[in-house]
């Protein structure tokens, strides 16, 4: 759980979440003003993915940057081409498993491949990519699947929360597709796509909210009750 012990980490978490809260809604707003919101499943909307990719990459640079000069130097030296290659291959594998998984859980099999592919790329970008950029392939997998004996810092905590909420958002988004409202956005994969984005966004908002609450709790101990409640909720998962 988040702790107040490491103020630096906490600040990073807050700022990166705030950044997400700003850039993601702006992308969606711009797209919907252009009238392209209902074409997010097409290949033509690839630029959204590129934008998100760049934003996440910048965020991960910020998160990994360290004030400690020594650590910075040692880390800077350690980045290798093979690491990047490995991460890339791993991302491709994840993309493919998302693709297959989404199909297994009900996406059209014989057509709409393009749409499904876009959705799975978005999911990969929002779930696995930030984790890998932060802590490498092996560690990120173990953190994602709840290896509690690993040392988890606040940043990892946030990233794992983000990915879980993204999957939940996409999953819940699928609910509206079969309903008989006859709206244009009940097309595969728009609800899932937007659901994933809103899940991710919601998770970031919650992070900011939690940090604010925790800071407030230092002044007003009454709020501790809510913080504890939020913490226990999370531990159930």
């Amino acid at each position: 759980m988040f702790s107040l012990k490491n103020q630096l980490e906490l600040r990073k978490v807050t700022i990166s979440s705030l950044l997400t809260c700003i850039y993601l809604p702006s992308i969606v707003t711009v797209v919907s003003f252009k009238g392209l919101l209902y074409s997010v499943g097409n290949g033509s909307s690839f630029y959204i993915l590129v934008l998100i990719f760049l934003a996440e990459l910048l965020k991960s640079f910020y998160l990994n940057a360290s004030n400690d000069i020594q650590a910075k130097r040692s880390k800077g030296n350690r980045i290798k081409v093979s690491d990047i290659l490995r991460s890339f291959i791993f991302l491709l594998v994840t993309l493919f498993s998302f693709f297959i998984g989404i199909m297994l859980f009900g996406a059209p099999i014989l057509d709409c491949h393009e749409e499904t592919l876009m959705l799975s790329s978005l999911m990969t970008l929002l779930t696995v990519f930030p984790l890998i950029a932060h802590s490498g392939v092996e560690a990120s997998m173990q953190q994602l699947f709840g290896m509690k004996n690993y040392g988890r810092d606040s940043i990892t905590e946030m990233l794992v929360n983000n990915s879980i909420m993204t999957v939940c958002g996409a999953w819940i988004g699928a609910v509206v597709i079969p309903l008989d409202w006859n709206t244009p956005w009940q097309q595969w994969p728009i609800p899932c796509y937007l659901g994933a984005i809103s899940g991710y966004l919601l998770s970031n908002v919650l992070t900011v909210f939690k940090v604010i609450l925790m800071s407030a709790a230092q002044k007003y101990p009454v709020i501790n009750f809510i913080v504890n409640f939020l913490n226990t909720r999370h531990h159930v998962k």
Partner: protein
Amino acid sequence: MQSWLQNRWTSLSLLIMALGGLMLFLYGFFPLKYHSGTLAHMDDLPNFIDGISIDGHEVYKTEENSVILMVIDGLRYDFVTDEYMPYTGQLLKNKSACIYVSVAEPPTVTMPRIKSPQRKKEKAQWRRTINFWRDIFAMMTGSVSTFADVALNFGAPAVRGDSVLRVAASRGRRSVMYGDDTWLRLFPGLWAEYDGTTSFYVTDYTEVDNNVTRHLDKVLAPDEKMKPSFDFLVLHYLGLDHIGHLEGARSPMIKPKLLEMDAVVKKIYTAMQKWDRAGTLIVCGDHGMRDAGGHGGASPAELLVPLVLARTPLFQCPHPAGPGPTVAQVDVAPSVAWLLNAPIPGESVGRLLPALLPSDLRQHLYLLHVLAAHNARQGVPTDAEYYKQFQRAQSQFAHYLATGQQSAAKIAKDFYEESLEAMSKYLSEQMVDLDMFAIGIAVVILYFIAITLFCITLYSLQPEQTRKTSTGHHRKSSAGLFVAFIIVLIICTIILVISCFITETKSQFCSFNSAWILVFALTACVLTMSYFIAKTAIENTKNLTTLNDFNIMDYLLIFGTVFHSWSFFGTSFIEEEHMTWYFLWNTLMLFILLRTVVVVIMYVGKMFIGATEVQEKPELYKKMDFNIGLLPKWVLLIALHRYLRTMNQTGDRWLFLPDTADWLNAPENSIYLQAHLVIGTILTLTICLWNIRYMNNVMHMHTAFTIAAAVCILCYRINTKALGSPFDDIQSWDPVTIVNFFWGVLIAQFVFEILTYIGTFKICSIHTGTSRANNKFIYNKPKAKREDYFYDPLVEEPWNLDEVKLSLARSVSHLMLNYIMLIVILLMRPHNVIMVPSVFITCMLTSKCLDHKLLDTRPGRNTDIVDTLSQVLVHLWIGQVFFFYQGNSNSLASVDLGSGYVGLREYCAVRVALRMGLHAYGGPAVAGATLFAHIATAPSWHQYLQTLWRTVNIFAVHRTYAVALYCIVTVFFRHHLFVWTVFSPKLLYDFVATVFTIQALTSIAQIVGLTHFTSWLAKTLTYKSRL
């Protein structure tokens, strides 16, 4: 009360009471008093009016008439104008024809957009039949139909009661029909000449109408005496409705179609003018049309339909120009009957169309009298104002007949019309009247029973020790209990009686008849009993710590089950219930998948980090092995479910989409269909053979029996040409004989099993030398005697009775599972056969994955109770999911009638219903049987009984909860537009599901009873032989 609470079958009996409550609810919702089936005769015409004699036949008689009823499907009121139908508009303008506003019934079944392959023809036919039913029924019998009429006529949609066509035929009139063949199916054998067109292709809107119009020239042409060849002609045009469904009411194609209809009207009218006898043309729509597609049905555009009446010769419409007076659809029946000089159909509640009433005052009044007297006979309360009005009118009419006073005639006419209007309204409304008091009582009963069952279930979920200790405290004398029971019973009865009188209800429930007083008393008893049981259960429920062991999947299962019943507050969630289940089931599969992955990664990680830990704990290693094996299986299972989900499109909205079953049933793909059939059958056979290991397979007799049964099924398939084979002989066999042989094999297998249990074949088995290690059904003395043997010799059994009981229960449960699987694959459609082994595989794999010990790193915890809960819920889910995979839905259209006649020569209501029920509920049945067979593999008899008790409780509480909540939903939406289409069929489905649950639990109770009985038998015999 304690003993009631602890009895294993209390929940079963409570469930039976809940079924009683549900029946009371259904009684209130669909009262069954309706169509008495009275047939009308000419002799029924009254010959005395208040003592004054009148010649009924003479006055009633009309001139010779030919009536043409032209029904244009989807004709709405604003279509009959100069713009769309110029000729008709002209007729209306010069008063040669009258127009009325007729209010149609809301559509019963919304017509789907079917671009359908062959297989969906049947479904479409059903929808269409039910859709037309009400309109045609209303027009031809003159009475409003009810849901019960449709539901009870299931499978044989012919109208049994009286109708215009029957009275016309009895008077020797010739009826001719051209148009949709629904008419032929509704009134078989009453047509002198007909040509029914079958049209399920909505895209076809020219051919259907040409098929009707092409007969017109011939049939309208008069014979040499200038008389037409028919007396009553029905024309049904569908094209307009098809256009409306395809393109909406604003389509450019509407106008040409209406012009075509107008041309038909012109043709008929000109032909009528040439005849030497009177002709009457009635043009009407059966329902309107909305402007655009989508749901709806209550808008004026859909409900208001025109009714145009044109007569030759010499007809002047008495009504002023304008929209015309309002009439009802039921008014067509008496009008046509009178025009044909036939008596008014027995159950008609309608009136004559005002323009038809003759100008002759005597006949006019007599007709009004006949109608009023007819309506008054049909159970109008004699103390009502309109009945008195009728009597006053009658005396005025008599006065007129006696004296000829015009004023009396005028008064009589007014009085008759007033009372007729009120009586018609009363009788029509009575048909759709609900017995709210009975419904309320039924809901209360269901609600009470659900709460009681919930309390019992919670009580049963306690760990055993706590339950035992809590029993000691409350020891009340039975006499005291009895007195308490009586007192509460009296209080309940008093409350019921008071509520009866306070609400001033007219319900039968409060009529205190001999039959109903029994129901009344039973209700009071049930309420009292459930109160006592719930009270005792709450008092004794103290330790629910087991519920702390829930993991996230248990929460999902419980939440999903609870939520699903609440989702019915939305109509589309009823129509698309399968979507809810698919979503819940997918979520569960995702959770299990994630957990399996987590466990695998966790163990692999542990192996890498702390190798010593793994080496030290062999069970951890075993767990890991098991999990890694589970992962690919689970992924394959998900893929299998993905495939099965595409097999049958169901529900309402997406029904028209092509599915795998359509593809398989296409003639060019028959090889794949046969592959499905063979694979499904062989997999089932393998599973059955695998289950045989729990039975006494002496000399492999069971293997032989099972294979014989499977061969029967294959022969049946070959015989019905679902499967090709090199053996041509089989084609010539009688399918009924094959199926009978199949039943014979099953019965023989059961008898054989019981015989081996008794020990008849003991000698044989020794001779063959296959002395199996699990020589299960032989009574042994236990080797080690207990220390306290002497203290309690009666209770402590020196024989291993319990073991034998358990193995018998185990073997019979598995036998039952095998039977259900084999019977279901016999009944299933060829493409659905694959479902049966899939249910079994899903059940086995899921119950392994849901084991609480899988993830639990702390060993030695007792998770049996939580395991039971999750197992039962997940089997219920699997059953539901497969119910929908198979193509069922919550509409009557999806019931497969074909399966009811497998292996039957003639219709037999009980057998057909049983087959249809087992076919529809095949998925839930196999899942349930698998669950009970799985329970029977418990290590000890005592544990088996405990698990069984909890399982029965959970089954009962789930069923009652669903039914109680759904009843509340139905009451809530009783005036909803879709109450017939959506809510009522689901109520029937729930009823059938309850009956089947009771049946399943009863057969489990029978198995336990059988074990007790045989054990008692063996004990007495053995004691005797020892003596």
